[in-house]
């Protein structure tokens, strides 16, 4: 599926902004660490999100048709359909990732430098090992490639860069997927609905943790 620019822009900003309550999470070691260096030139003001944006604006997207196929295949390897929810590509995560890596902000620029060479690598790997593009491979072939790189800690030294790419791609796929209504439902988020009062945790929850 493909969605309009305004929708993906709003989605990207919302997902990027929804770091829980404190800024604590943004500073914990790991994928949320933010690049605060910025760029000398700056990136100007944010695009107007009340406006309808179409292809090209407010900044050009990155992924061409072949790269979108690779991205979709990798998204769905990481988050396939299961009995609870559909796959990542089915809810627009390919558009989300394209939006993310195309944006001019420091974090997104940094991620772009990992994602684009990574997509090139995975295509080359698919060709070298199986003589076909990644999107056209059998599941078992894709998994063979993924198994070598899905753990930064366990990857062979020559796969270290590819493993870092895979980890980053997995984080972006998860962030995109779980910030959709479908993903939120899957994961058990039932908030962001207006309430007349806030009751706190129900008794069954308190019992489970030994507080009631």
């Amino acid at each position, binding site marked *: 599926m493909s969605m309009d620019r305004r929708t993906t822009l709003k989605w990207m900003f919302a997902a990027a902004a*929804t770091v829980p309550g404190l800024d*604590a999470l943004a500073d914990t070691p790991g994928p949320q660490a933010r690049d605060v260096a910025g760029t000398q030139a700056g990136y100007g003001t944010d695009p107007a999100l009340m406006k309808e944006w179409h292809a090209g604006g407010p900044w050009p997207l990155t992924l061409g048709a072949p790269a979108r196929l690779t991205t979709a295949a990798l998204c769905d390897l990481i988050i396939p359909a299961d009995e609870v929810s559909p796959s990542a590509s089915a809810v627009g995560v390919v558009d989300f990732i394209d939006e993310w890596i195309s944006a001019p902000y420091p974090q997104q620029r940094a991620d772009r430098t990992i994602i684009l060479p990574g997509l090139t690598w995975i295509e080359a790997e698919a060709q070298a090992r199986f003589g076909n593009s990644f999107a056209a491979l059998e599941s078992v072939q894709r998994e063979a490639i993924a198994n070598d790189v899905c753990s930064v800690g366990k990857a062979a030294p020559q796969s270290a860069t590819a493993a870092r790419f895979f*980890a980053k791609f997995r984080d972006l796929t998860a962030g995109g997927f779980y910030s959709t209504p479908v993903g939120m439902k899957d994961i058990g*988020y039932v908030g962001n609905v207006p309430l007349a009062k806030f009751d706190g945790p129900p008794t069954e929850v308190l019992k489970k943790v030994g507080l009631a």
Partner: protein
Amino acid sequence: WWRARMLGGRTNHWGRISLRNGPYDFKPQTRDGLGFDWPMGYEDLAPFYDKVEMLIGVYGSNEGLENTPNSSPGVLLPPPKPRVSDLLVRKHAAKLKVPVIPGHRAVLTKKLDDARIPKLLHPGNAKAQKILAEDMRARAACFFATPCGRGCSIRANYQSTTVHLPPAMATGNLDIVTDAMVRAVTKRAGGGADGVIYIDRRTGAEHRAKARVVVLAASALETVRILLNSGVANGSGKVGKYIMDTVGANFGGQVPMLEGLPPHNEDGVDGGHMYVPWWLYKEQVAGKLGFARGYHIEFDGGKTMPGMGTGAGLEWLNGGNYGKKFKQDARRYYGSFVKFAGRGEMIPNDDCYAELDPTTKDKFGIPVLRFHWKWSDHETRQAAHMQKTFAEIIDAMGGRMATPPQSGEKAIKQGGIIIHEVGGAIMGDDPAKSVTNSFGQSWEMKNLFITDGATLCSNADKNPTLTIMALAWRAAEHMLGLMKRKEL
């Protein structure tokens, strides 16, 4: 050193944590010999803390803890009910004698009392009472949905644009000029300020605004920049000196007890429901800690609104995977993390200052600031203590940590990251050693006032916004008195 060049400034993106400085915080030098005492005490500001809390609406509780002041009766709104992670932290932190109490934040947990408060805030001023009462009726109580940081459509949280400006506009006495970049305060013949020069951001044209009294509230460091670019109010040479930020260090863990809990709405008021005030005053003053000032702990856990952190960075827990197993793990671990953030007091020092950059100018041609910064051992040791404490609490909860706690040097955030920017035009009793008196009034220009954080001569662990607002109210009353007596 983030800048918030927007209407409402920093109130658009603060955490709404509203803590009072305590009696010790006004006399830190007397207590431990370091930094500066304020030219006022807690008792001078307490009535204004009450007023600000009633005006903006702050939830919390009165616990009577050391240097953690109570508000007057009837001032605070009820705190929201704790989340399950709050209760778990409280239970296990108690084993370490770390107190967990309701937080204080500027979010309406119930509607403001429009019949009572306006009379208390504007005694004898029927027009002000009426306007404020109408505005208080227009603010709804929190509906526990939508992220505060993106603006509150029902005006339940406090931000200047929705809480201060509408009633001020309703008086008919306020003109707002937006897109105006102030370059300098102008001097009138015979001394004193007579206005400002500003540049229209859209056209680049320069304009002047004339004034009987000039009040700078541009965010501490922007105020410093304006003063330095104006060449005024700096006979002491202290403009730009003693800039401070909050000591910040964070650490989190994963708590198996929180895995697999039945889904329930944990949004609450979109921010901390509870916190830990500094609890080691006695040990500290006895010299047992190796650092002179305290910190409080903000923490967060549970099934918060998913975003880029959700399902991310799980390799330390599951070894790194993909596919259906990954989806199962994302469900399993979501909501099981607890994150702690220490926010501590920095002591002003000679190595932390801002000055005009001799070459770099912004796009309007206005010289920018350059910053000099150095934490002292007091701050890095404090950050190390934070890390150790957070790890102990996580451990007590049966939690797991991705990495061991960091050293203070590694854990401490750079200056300008927490961005509780204060100082740079400090208040004092002595015109040779300070820029303003306790009313934020320049020693040299009697009609020039500063009402942002620039006048703070210490930066208690308590987030500064509430104190800045209380000081501003006190300064405004003083200013009005002077104007009525024709002394301004």
